[in-house]
């Protein structure tokens, strides 16, 4: 019984962290920070899926979703930051 409660507690912690990361990623206005949080979210999601006995999908999510998706977004965030910098320089 205690084991079951502990397991439930473990699940709850996993999910609360997951939702927290998602919320943080969604609410962050700063692009690079948002992407970093999204990558963290993706990696955590992979962890959760591993917990649900889905190692194949967890691997794919970590490598493709969080990894490559994150890399693409980081590049975009870099472009956005540069564009903002240029704007800032244009109008001092």
């Amino acid at each position, binding site marked *: 019984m205690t084991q079951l409660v502990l397991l439930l507690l473990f699940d709850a912690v996993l999910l609360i962290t997951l939702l927290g990361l998602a919320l943080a990623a969604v609410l962050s206005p700063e692009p690079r920070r948002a992407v970093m949080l999204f990558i963290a979210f993706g990696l955590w999601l992979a962890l959760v899926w591993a917990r649900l006995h889905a190692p*194949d999908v967890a691997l794919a999510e970590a490598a493709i979703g969080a990894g490559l998706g994150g890399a693409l977004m980081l590049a975009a965030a870099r472009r956005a930051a540069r564009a903002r910098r240029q704007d800032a320089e244009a109008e001092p």
Partner: protein
Amino acid sequence: MTDPTFATRPDPARAAERDRDLKLLLAVLLALLGVTMTAIYALALNAGAAPRLADLALARVPQTGVDNPVTAVLLNYRAYDTLMELAVLLAALLGIWSLGPAPAGFQRSGPVLAGMVSWVVPLLIVAGGYMLWVGGYAPGGAFQAGALLGAAGVIVRLAGDPQAGLPGEAAQRWLLVLGVLVFTLVGLGLMLFGAGFLTYPPKLAKWLILLIESAATLAIGVALAAAYVGGRPTATSPLDPRPSAQPK
């Protein structure tokens, strides 16, 4: 991206206020939707057809030519989905290429990363090969392996090669279509021999799947790396002999 619902309005202070109210209202509505859907989902779980496809899918695994049930679904039961998914990846990349050469502003990274490349990239490639092979009976498979190849490309590009170590355009094009091409030709070949489209004879299944997966791994790796490059290949040596994902 201007959404008509959120177009600019005259008075900024009041507009901001109304904007906030709207966002809040939307949040409340969506939260209600989430709760409703959870209740319905609970109903579906409770009253639903419990084992679903699990037992059947697991029971047929021995006849699929692979031992990993997920690979069995991906490349045998639902191979057609996977074929089309590779086509989706191809379409996205062709879309990226149609928009022009890679955007400017590429930055060479520091020496630390460049030093890392020499050992990380070969490691990734080996890991990819292993992942491909292991997918037959353990977690892994073409997608994960392809992702590792793609990651190697990303690192090569970060380390300074704007083309991410990819070969010339002509070779890149062939590599890109390789996955779908081998997949389709295998499917059609089987149809020609009377087995039906993508219906593997149990004896050959293992090897056909491995063939398809190998081609798919290469194609996925090249597509992901090319997507990271973000545009048409600029160096147009038609038949560049370099193998994929090799640092300069």
